[in-house]
């Protein structure tokens, strides 16, 4: 879905060891008396295992667990900001409306890729925008505003890999040979998150996370990863 962006992120990974670089256009969430409602869009998530030889094998069970843990951690972190996490559900009995939702999600992916390109790769910076985060999905997102009675939509793309026992062994055996230029990498975390104001369509906060650590398979690890991903998230 977002493969081009993923490739860019991975390029970034080679360049930068451990980073989270948020952009924000608002000082705080604006909602209602009871606090803003944030719609959590379906998390685009995959956990995988790096085999000894370096092939990356997707892991379905880990991914399911991580989705649950991440969602819980997000709800907790938002609650600390007096915001409520609203779960997304696709309109099961209305194909026309479901198609509109799908297209909004894809539009968001495309805008997200553009932000990754133009705000995280200095050579692709746009003269007209510079470092100013100035992107919008347009008024049609009001559809989600009304359907879920939500003020913002939070979208997350996350890939997380872990070294297998075989990879760990290979890295250990290879370590003494580093003077020969032999070096093997282990797992990595890459994530992208964005917040869209559902009343206007504007992207009001965006962050990219890249690092060679992190753990999404435990509650504590998920909380730490999500907190890092939400760095600079408007209070």
């Amino acid at each position, binding site marked *: *879905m977002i493969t081009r962006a993923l490739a860019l992120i991975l390029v970034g990974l080679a360049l930068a060891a451990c980073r989270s670089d948020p952009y924000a256009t608002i000082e705080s969430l604006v909602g209602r008396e009871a606090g803003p409602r944030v719609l959590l869009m379906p998390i*685009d998530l*995959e956990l*995988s295992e790096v*085999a*000894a*030889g*370096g*092939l*990356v*094998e*997707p*892991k*379905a*069970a880990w*991914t*399911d667990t991580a989705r649950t843990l991440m969602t819980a951690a997000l709800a907790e972190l938002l609650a600390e900001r007096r915001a409520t996490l609203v779960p997304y559900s696709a309109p099961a009995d209305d194909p026309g409306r479901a*198609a509109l939702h*799908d*297209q909004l999600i*894809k539009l968001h992916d495309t805008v997200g890729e553009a932000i990754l390109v133009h705000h995280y790769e200095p050579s692709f910076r746009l003269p007209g925008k510079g470092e100013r985060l100035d992107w919008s999905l347009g008024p049609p997102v009001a559809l989600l505003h009304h359907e879920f009675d939500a003020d913002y939509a939070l979208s997350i793309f996350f890939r997380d890999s872990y070294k297998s026992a*075989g990879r760990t062994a*290979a890295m250990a*055996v*290879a370590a*003494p*040979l580093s003077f*020969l230029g*032999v070096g*093997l990498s282990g797992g990595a975390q890459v994530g992208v998150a964005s917040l869209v104001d559902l009343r206007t369509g504007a992207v009001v906060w965006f962050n990219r996370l890249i690092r060679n650590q992190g753990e999404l398979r435990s509650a504590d690890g998920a909380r730490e990863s999500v907190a890092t991903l939400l760095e600079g998230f408007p209070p």
Partner: protein
Amino acid sequence: MTRARALLFALALALAACAPPAEPPIVLDLSGATAPLIDPYRFGEGGATTDQRPGARPAQETDEGGLWMRMDRVEQDLRTSGNLVRDPELNTYVQGLVCALAGPYCSDIRSYVMRLPAFNASMAPNGVMQVWTGLLVRCRDEAQLAAVIGHEIGHYVRRHSMQLWRDARDKTDFLVFFQIAIAAARVPFVTDVVTYGVIGSIYAFGRDAEREADRIGLALMARAGYDPAAVPAIWRQVVREDEADRYRAFRTIYFATHPTPRERLETLDLLARGTRTERRESGAERYRAIMKPRRLDWLRDELALRRFDRMEILLATLVEDEPAAGDLRYMQGEVYRLRGDPGDEAKALDAFRAAAAAEAPPAETHRSLGLVLRRTGERAAADAAFADYLRLKPAAEDRAMIEALIGEAP
């Protein structure tokens, strides 16, 4: 190694269409007296693991479960893709053919017709089959399409995605330790040789899977009553297009995901000849009734690739079957108009005139005729052709442009 890995990865997740087989020649006797010598629906043969039925959702914890998760996401993308052809009649037709061939696996397989040029279909382990419109325009009859769909079902039944993934993973796992050991021993050259050997063997395993799928595809289509000769026929078409293409890139077979089209043609030809069957249907009329009203846009997509030499061959083949088809004659003219080899202008004029006199030519035939006539200096005839275009398509979106051309000073 990165590039090789990316290829492997792509390869393991979706096996592309193209397909042929090998020794020993299998004699398929479908004439009734004897049972077929191979059962194309048996999945525990030729290296396949027999732990579960294809299409049974694998446990989440397994490597195969991971591949399914990834392909489930691909399916979600296909469902919402702008390239998905949603035409119910066409989809019913393609899925009907899948069912006629897939037997007990019919309900497991979900076919998606994708509007994409080029000869391709693919099969994923979770039952997602892609059929590209570039394949539909290249098949001359239902039997040829059945050959390719049968091949894809072969991948599915033998769980080739899973087999390929495990093969690549196990071989690269071995390789990394070997590379470390050789680096430690500081022996020159050996690492390169063995690395290429291992990577080559991963590709070779994949080509063997293609050969197996070819054999299964032939068996399935013959069993369903189609003429086995259609299988080599589709490959003959691919080989002819390949050979005509002046820009054809040299490709080494060593890193090829599929056997060469020529090998597939030759092997399948032998196998098809050895297949005894009573029914030898082509389904040509049924096929054409579905595809003919739909193919003009698909042919335009092919044209947009600007692979004119290939398209020239493709159209010549289709015109053999339908000499009076205005859409095909028009596309022939477009190939010559846009290619611009010496002599192409004359060929384009001939083709557009033949189209105009044939059955149901697209209105654009007259516009293209006018454009070529302008180029050859026949302004009056060009203006007449433009006028024909505007008369046949009064709401043409380029009306103002064409009107501006009419009567323009030379």
